[in-house]
């Protein structure tokens, strides 16, 4: 559930609490035999990698002790930073031989603890593998080394009128490797899909060093679609070293409209109506009053003070944009909006987006918060918003809602005070309740951030034992000894027998 982002001025005090949390997160006990062999293992790694690509000094490995889920930390045994697929394979062969767990890492922006090490693990970082290998406009694809950042893929082709569609808000930092491992989404999923829908091929190295070429410059698999299982497997099946990505010609233009309502439920109903009417906006963003107020104070975007606000963006030719905005306005009017503000210029578009884009920063200014990531059927939006409000009263903690409403991926932010004893625990309990609610109405625990260590123990809420067993079997095939990122995704009780074997 639980992405803990501590308010700035209080970081020191929060940190103590977070440290306490760190002790609470159950991870497998490190293997003493591996810890005892550290020197030998490092020496073997140094035989196949240059000295600057192996980090083993205890103060330096600290830089890799956590990802963006900073509540949980543990420095690894060592860190390797290979530059080629061959080096990755060589590292994995050694670790396989030594029985050392390996945790793949891109840029470390996971909000689920996907890249969290254990003390007996080697972090395999792909950040030095960031080359652009091929740009092919006639086949509408690029091939990159997997450590390349998401934004730099679009940057490389934008000058020629193309873009790479999946755009997580972390796109400046996060790597394609992490995007593939988490099957990351972004603001434009409703129209363009998530990572799996834009991935054509990948080079994947298995834990025993075997290199697989999956997919390629063509549009389907010759046999079983193994690429689809690699995408979203959270670094547990193989290490992705290269990827072939679909790029698209950029639309001629895009323009948003801001629609303000007196009730969250009505705003939710409006979202459903827009979708039902056959319009496919590229983005439908939702913000509720606590979030709007915080953004106003922070960014002064000029938002109306209202219960709920939608930002709906459409794209295409100028005529297509006008037409879609007119249709949306017509639908919105049936819901008595208190304001309907259509952008007529670049500057107006920028102002409409300004508040939304600063939402997370703004919330961080006024409070400590926890960011959830469950998905619900869009039609359940009014019900879920009402229930969250009721629970908020029961738990005595405020919630701000800001999310991609078009695809039902919610990001409720639970506000708490890290200084107040018990607040954090209440907040976590509340978060778990919200995720249970998401599953109960037909949704899921995580829409884009992944399971990692964070939602590992809630997996049984969503899946029956045989469903989890089926997923574990896939790992058995790709990584029979369960050495690759072994303590993630599955409840430890389920993976225990397999990890030990």
């Amino acid at each position, binding site marked *: 559930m639980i992405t803990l982002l501590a308010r700035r001025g209080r970081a020191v005090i929060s940190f103590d609490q977070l440290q306490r949390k760190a002790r609470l997160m159950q991870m497998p006990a490190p293997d003493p035999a591996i810890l005892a062999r550290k020197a030998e293992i490092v020496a073997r790694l140094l035989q196949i990698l240059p000295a600057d690509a192996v980090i083993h000094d205890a103060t330096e490995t600290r830089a890799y002790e956590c990802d963006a889920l900073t509540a949980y930390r543990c420095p690894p045994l060592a860190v390797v930073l290979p530059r080629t697929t061959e080096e990755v394979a060589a590292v994995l062969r050694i670790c396989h031989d030594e029985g050392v767990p390996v945790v793949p890492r891109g840029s470390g922006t996971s909000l689920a603890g996907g890249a969290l090490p254990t003390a007996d693990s080697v972090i395999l970082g792909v950040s030095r593998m960031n080359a652009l290998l091929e740009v092919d406009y*006639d*086949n*509408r694809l690029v091939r990159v080394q997997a450590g390349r950042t998401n934004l730099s893929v679009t940057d490389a082709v934008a000058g020629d*009128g193309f873009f790479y569609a999946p755009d997580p808000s972390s796109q400046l930092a996060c790597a394609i490797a992490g995007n593939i491992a988490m099957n990351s*989404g972004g603001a434009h*999923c409703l129209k363009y*899909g998530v990572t*799996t*829908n834009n991935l054509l091929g990948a080079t994947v190295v298995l834990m025993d060093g075997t290199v*697989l*070429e999956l997919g390629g*410059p*063509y*549009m*389907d698999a*010759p*046999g*079983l*679609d*193994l690429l*689809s*299982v690699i995408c*979203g*497997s959270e670094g547990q099946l193989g290490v992705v070293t290269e990827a072939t990505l679909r790029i698209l*010609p*950029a*639309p001629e233009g895009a323009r948003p409209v801001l629609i303000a309502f007196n009730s969250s439920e009505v705003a939710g109903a409006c979202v*459903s109506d827009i*979708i*039902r009417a*056959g319009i*496919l906006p590229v983005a439908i963003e939702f913000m509720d009053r606590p979030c709007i107020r915080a953004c106003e104070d922070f960014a002064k975007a000029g938002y109306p003070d209202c219960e709920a606000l939608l930002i709906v963006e459409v794209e*295409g*030719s100028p005529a*297509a944009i006008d*037409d*879609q905005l007119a249709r949306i306005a017509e639908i919105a009017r049936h819901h008595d909006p208190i304001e309907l503000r259509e952008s007529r210029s670049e500057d107006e578009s920028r102002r409409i987006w300004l508040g939304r884009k600063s939402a997370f920063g703004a919330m961080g200014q006024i409070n400590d918060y926890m960011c959830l990531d469950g*998905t*619900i*059927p*869009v*039609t359940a939006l009014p019900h879920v918003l009402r229930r969250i409000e009721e629970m908020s009263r029961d738990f005595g903690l405020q919630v701000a809602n800001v999310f991609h409403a078009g*695809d*039902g*991926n919610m990001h409720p932010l639970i506000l708490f005070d890290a200084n107040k004893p018990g607040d954090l625990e209440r907040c976590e309990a509340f978060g778990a309740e919200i995720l249970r609610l998401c599953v109960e109405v037909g*949704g*899921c*625990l*995580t829409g884009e951030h*992944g399971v990692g260590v964070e*939602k590992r123990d809630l997996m049984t809420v969503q*899946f029956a034992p045989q*469903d*989890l067993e*089926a*997923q574990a*079997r*896939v790992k058995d*095939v*790709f990584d029979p000894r369960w050495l690759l990122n072994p303590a993630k995704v599955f409840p430890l009780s389920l993976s225990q027998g397999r990890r030990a074997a």
Partner: protein
Amino acid sequence: MMQVATVDDLAEVIRSAQGPLRIQGGGTRPVGNPVVGSPLQVGLRGITLYEPGALTLVAQAGTPLAEIDAVLADHAQHLPFEPMDHRALMGTGGEPTLGGMVAANASGPRRLRAGACRDSLIGVQFVDGTGTAIRNGGRVMKNVTGYDLARLMAGSHGTLGVLTEVAFKLLPRPEKVTTLILPGLDAPTAVAAMAAALRTPFEVTGAGWAGGNVMLRIEGFATSVADRAERLAAALARFGRAELAAADPWPALRDVTGFAGREGDVWRLSVAPTDAAQVAGRIEGEVILDWGGGLIWALVPPGTDLRGQLGSIRGHATLVRAAPETRAALGAFHPEPQPVAAIAAGLRARFDPRGILNPGLMA
């Protein structure tokens, strides 16, 4: 033929099976190596849930596709990947079902823009070779909870499990469709014209070539279709004067009806679009292109092995229609490199340990 109408019955039939089973939906897509086994038809039917406001459909695997299409049409929605209907090409009867469509990952011309069947698939329930019913994915379009086995099931041709329920993300059905025809182009020029069209921002949702004609599809709200089509034609002026198609050519391209009822074997090749002209040039037979060239359909003399023609070009070739002996001899599916084949075999061994689900169909 054995017919099962509930998940429990299906699980029981599989658990107690004494030998191989040949899994069938509507029996309209006999793709793959010939299978020896008792036929088992999945008779689970009906829509479990349809929420137009959430663009979501969940239905039983044995539901006829025609039934789904009619219901979605009432709400101006559709399955955007435009599933191919194999009946004309394969000379089969029966009714295509949702499960058969997913098992074959059947996708048509719109695959270019909207993705394949596997891209719209958001959830499955299936019974594996041990008789266990398993769920994966769900009914929401953004879901990264656990491994994605739903997409693995798409295109697995009933070799990992028998689908019982499938869930899709839907899209609005276009209000208006226009097709531009560029007549009289040879394969290399056609491929260049399609690449040029697909580089424009006009959202081309179909790009094919048959009988010397390039076909390009523009669709969406009526207000913008004419404008985009006009500007697309202008952008392609160097390839000739574009004409508006009088009739809708896409169902025929989707179903490859051009090769229906004709003597010869039919191959399906998947390559990078710009390699299509070169591959087409090597094929001694008739060729139809879809997906801007990324999908090649070839009609060749019986017994021809086209795989050698790919040479160093990356891609794969599936023998879709041929005598059972030819399919058995050449193998319907393209052989995979050893490490990939080993993983595929490993998955089959875990999901179907007795090897009773369509054994040998894919390998």
